[in-house]
């Protein structure tokens, strides 16, 4: 039986009309953020000015303020450092574990697989308090290492789960040839399996990077000095002083902070979609 496009009809204009409110709902906050970040303060805080667009000329003042008068460049660098390291570590650990679960037979592998599934569902909100104590005991509190150590707790189960699915789709035969030729398991994994599973690896890297870049709770709890913060925490805590909100720079910070994710997203949209749906549809 062929897999069809379930009940797919060529949509009339009504489908576009009906989807417009959804698109508007999804995009308006971003549009409004951009408009706010480009407005001068007099217009921004003028209650009679139309908020939907810029009437008195666009300005880059908020961006300049953000980049020169705040710690934003440091936060950006910190986030990049933490994300890059955690992605490398958690993708490698995930590849090894996923290959073992998908391919190798040994005592305890089924239990380990269930363990991965359970930890994949554990939300960070469940463990941040004991983790804060562990991080402090290890002397890592208020350093990027606190995050590099703890981010893999949600990235490794995710990557393992995602990659297990990819590895299972690779025919066993190609591995068996390599094994007969005298490769050991690690060599087989590196030379034969990984090149074929490349789309899955790209997907794992992409999601890990997004999760690490977007993380908020652990970063808020484990890192406290201004210079060591990541973007999500820095922008939302250090740009607000008492009752004074720098709305223009807040929005500018939100936009620059999202740029790396948007760039990755534009280039790899299909990977995002397959990663998102893979888990649920394949079960």
């Amino acid at each position, binding site marked *: 039986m062929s897999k*069809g496009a379930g009940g797919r009809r060529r949509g009339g204009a009504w489908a576009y009309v009906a*989807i417009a409110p959804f698109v508007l709902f999804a995009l308006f*906050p971003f549009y409004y953020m951009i408009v706010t970040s480009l407005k001068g303060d007099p217009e921004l805080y003028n209650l009679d000015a139309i908020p939907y667009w810029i009437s008195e000329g666009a300005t880059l003042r908020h961006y300049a303020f953000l980049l020169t008068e705040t710690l934003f460049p440091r936060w950006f660098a910190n986030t990049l450092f933490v994300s890059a390291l955690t992605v490398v570590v958690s993708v490698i650990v995930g590849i090894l574990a996923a290959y073992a679960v998908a391919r190798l037979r040994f005592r305890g592998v089924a239990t380990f697989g269930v363990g991965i599934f359970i930890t994949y569902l554990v939300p960070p909100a469940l463990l941040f*308090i004991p983790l804060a104590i562990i991080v402090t005991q290890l002397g890592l509190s208020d350093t990027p290492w606190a995050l590099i150590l703890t981010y893999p707790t949600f990235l490794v189960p995710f990557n393992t789960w995602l990659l297990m699915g990819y590895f299972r789709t690779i025919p066993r035969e190609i591995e068996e040839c390599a094994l007969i030729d005298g490769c050991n398991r690690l060599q087989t994994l590196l030379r034969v399996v990984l090149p074929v599973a490349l789309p899955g690896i790209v997907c794992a890297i992409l999601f890990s990077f997004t999760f690490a870049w977007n993380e908020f709770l652990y970063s808020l709890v484990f890192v406290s000095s201004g210079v060591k913060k990541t973007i999500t925490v820095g922008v939302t805590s250090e740009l607000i002083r008492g009752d004074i909100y720098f709305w223009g720079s807040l929005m500018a910070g*939100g936009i620059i902070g999202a740029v790396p994710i948007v760039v990755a997203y534009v280039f790899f949209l299909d990977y995002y979609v397959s990663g998102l749906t893979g888990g649920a549809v394949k079960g």
Partner: protein
Amino acid sequence: MRALSSEAAAGYGFIAPAAVLIVGLIGFPFGLALWFSVTETWVGRPGPFVGLANFVRLAGNGTFQLTLVNSLLYTIGAVALKAVLGFILALLLLRITRFEKLIRGAILLPFVIPTALSTLAWWWMFEPTYSVLNWTGRALGLLTSDVPWLSDPTLARSAIIVVNVWRGLPFFAITILAGLVAIPQEYYEAAETDGAGAWQRFRNVTLPLVKPVLGIVVLFSTILTMADFNIVYLMTRGGPMNSTHLFSTLAHQSGMTSGRLSEGAAISLFLFPLLVLIVIVQLRLVRRQTAYE
């Protein structure tokens, strides 16, 4: 025999790093949370064993009771809206053939952008004085005074649900869409031959076949929504009058801000029964699907 043992050796070697991580940084902290919750521990001061005293005290605490109600309202409200709107959106996306990628990309955007940062945009839209919503209401003559979006309990609760729906809707829509696309076209042709109308085709073909996917998405989203932190922490800090606190924000306030580790850990642990329930149901669903294949 030798090949078997080398396979096992490779297996243990390969899972070792992940296993160490899971035991050391998920299993051990979980044990620590359990221990904190049955002792009287403060930051920097280990305390004596007190049994279930922390849980008993929480059960009688008005703020905690309110948090329990908030969590249920927030989770049920947001997940129900995401499921219904996500289904509608998926059905619409299925009918979009031109600009397909562009529209999908736009729809998916709220899900990939850092929530902490996009929540700032919503916070600004709900800002009491400069709210774009109030401005629009005044301009259209619908409002005479400013609506206090985040300082009225009911409005604040609705506002955080709206933001959660905004962020989570793409996940529902894209996943349900994948479920819809996987339905074999023949089923629809057969139903049509039998004289089934559009509604009957939806009720008797689409709905039952998408149900498993919908079930998994709803379960997955339930745990993520109930364990949500960013939106509430940034928009209301649990206020006004604790009317928007979730387990995570109350645990953060109690355990981190006030240093009551035991109480904070006990509050967080209320997420655990839900997690267990969802793991059991999901594992059963996965097994049943595998059995069919």
